[in-house]
């Protein structure tokens, strides 16, 4: 057990993967000598040489397309997009090739690429540096999309992403890079497709992922004062999604709030809310509510706290879960009338 940051855990995951598997190569903008603007690749070039970890020309479609070619030659590329919005130039390569190559070729070609995307805000970044872009990838069949919220998950999910036979978009919550925790590396937590109950509770379920997980946990803590015992589920892997864990929790608690940092409209939270009510309708005492960023471009630093879903916004939603309204008389009336 040692205390370390998520950044360090990610760095260790890369190093250990490179050590275990010669085919792993790491590249992108500034990942070499500089070690990445967030230092996630720090020391890899010095340790493994500039063929295993190298800088590329400044071109994201190029980086991802180059990774496609390298993967076709049998390597296992791990690429870094410097910031969320700077992965957009690679969108065609990701959506039309990375996501589809296995399918297009009936499995003859696979492209086990990891695309690391530092994402989301809360770091006082200027425009284009704080986008929450996970929904774009999650909506694209053929991609796996995972996002750690803890130091151990950061290590474990990244190792698994690199070992996975499919392309993985690995979303790293920037604001958690330098939060530290006890971790026992090489940690292996749950595999892809498993959500985790981070905090058990009985009254309502908070479903969150990535940067929203600490917010959910904090809100659950604060909710104790209001007399609510909230369960917190960390989604961990958005695709594949763990219906079983989420559904079990909501069936138990009967109430659910989905929290995401991204703008809400047609985001991952919408998917989760839709799934939960599809699967838990009869267990629900209230609609599944969503707490998310506003439907606005990510704002300038001085206004980001207004945009970001915080503890208060979560508690407001929890308060709206119709605690004194079970069963809901209106519901019965209308049902009878139908």
């Amino acid at each position: 057990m040692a205390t370390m940051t998520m950044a360090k855990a990610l760095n260790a995951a890369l190093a250990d993967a490179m050590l275990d598997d010669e085919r792993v190569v790491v590249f992108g903008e500034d990942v070499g000598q500089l070690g990445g603007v967030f230092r996630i690749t720090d020391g890899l070039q010095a340790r493994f040489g500039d063929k295993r970890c190298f800088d590329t020309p400044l071109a994201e479609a190029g980086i991802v397309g180059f990774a496609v070619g390298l993967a076709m030659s049998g390597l296992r590329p791990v690429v870094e997009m410097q910031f969320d919005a700077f992965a957009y130039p690679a969108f065609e390569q990701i959506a039309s090739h990375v996501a589809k190559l296995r399918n297009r070729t009936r499995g003859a070609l696979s492209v086990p690429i990891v695309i690391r995307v530092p994402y989301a805000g809360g770091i006082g970044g200027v425009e284009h540096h704080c986008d929450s872009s996970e929904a774009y990838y999650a909506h694209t069949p053929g991609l796996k999309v995972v996002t750690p919220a803890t130091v151990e998950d950061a290590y474990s999910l990244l190792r698994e992403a690199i070992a996975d036979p499919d392309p993985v978009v690995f979303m790293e919550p920037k604001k958690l890079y330098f939060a530290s925790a006890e971790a026992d590396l090489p940690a292996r937590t749950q595999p892809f497709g498993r959500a985790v109950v981070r905090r058990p509770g009985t009254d309502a379920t908070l479903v969150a992922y990535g940067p929203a997980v600490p917010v959910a946990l904090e809100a659950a803590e604060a909710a104790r004062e209001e007399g609510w015992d909230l369960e917190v589920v960390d989604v961990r892997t958005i695709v594949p999604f763990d219906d079983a864990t989420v559904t079990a929790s909501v069936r138990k608690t009967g109430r659910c709030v989905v929290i995401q940092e991204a703008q809400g409209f047609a985001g991952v939270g919408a998917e989760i809310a839709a799934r939960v009510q599809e699967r838990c309708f009869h267990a629900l005492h209230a609609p599944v509510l969503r707490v998310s960023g506003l439907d606005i471009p990510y704002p300038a630093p001085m206004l980001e706290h207004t945009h970001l879903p915080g503890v208060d916004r979560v508690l407001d939603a929890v308060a709206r879960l119709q605690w004194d309204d079970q069963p809901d008389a209106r519901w019965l009336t209308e049902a009878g009338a139908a």
Partner: protein
Amino acid sequence: MTTTPQAVRRESRRGSRPATTPDPARALMPAGEPVRLLDPDGTPLPAHPDYPEPPVEALVELHRRMVIGRRFDVQATALTKQGRLAVYPSSRGQEACQVGAILALNDDDWVFPTYRESMALVSRGIDPVEVLTLLRGDWHCGYDPAARRTAPQCTPLATQCVHAAGLAYGEAYQGRDTVALAFIGDGATSEGDFHEGVNFAAVFKAPVVYFVQNNRYAISVPLSRQTAAPSLAYKGVGYGVPSEQVDGNDPVAVLAVLTRAVAHARAGHGPFLVEAHTYRMEPHTNADDATRYRDADEVEAWRDRDPVARLETYLRARGALDDAAVAAVAEEAEAYAADLRDRMHDKPTVDPLSLFDHVYAQPTPQLVEQRDQVRAELAAAAEEGDA
């Protein structure tokens, strides 16, 4: 082209300036005119200082594959009329490029084709039925790209330029002397991915030949809307990549130039850019109406530069082909086409549940659910059908 008054003036002035260090870019520039080894009528030109003529056996084989390739192409177009293919982009008129590129490569080199390269792929020995799978519609890529060392035919324009750079670099990285040849059209050179691909290849000295078939149109859009440059080959110098233009309807020149480009790449000198000036004789695809945007006269003029006839004339004159040999090739081509027609006759069946097989290595729980749903739908439909 932008020969502005200023530019001209500058040029003249420059003449009088004292010589500075020699311009390192000079060696990367293409010749001002396309390399040509045969006249349009098939008469050989004086030997070219940089591009020796390929061995005659190679030219005979080139001819053979061009004849078969053309016959294949005509057959594929016919299949669209019979409803056996949804759509087919013909490369008639581009036979020298399609086949020349393949002959310039080793079997274990990699090819990165576009939708237009069906002829190239059959010249590579890929089963034409597999090549046409995409256009028949039973799946996307019908051949095994890994086994055939041929990427799936690429529709998102220019994206393959980057893949070729990565593949070639990855092969070299692993100690293999593979060359990658990426086909690209004139129009697609305007895409950012062309730029990024060639640049990556150059920076990483990846053994790639970028082969631009400048057939003068991107669907309906003429070359003048793609570039103001004197020729697309001039893009190379901006990447530090040597480049050349070639008469794309001169099969001998195409093979000669590409052979050298491949050798350059294989020798570890990095990428090479070749622009072939050619012409798409047919509409963009059978679904296109080319009369909307070009004159019959223009098309007719290109008929006189037919690459197949040009090579045949030359080889006959050299005594490397005679009536019997030509007839034999024609017969082989007919048999090839007949076989293709036969094998394309029946609509293939595809298992709808296979839709779920290759989205991921293992289907996600979500896909398993959806597969169950579809299975139930199919069962219900079958029952209804039975009832």
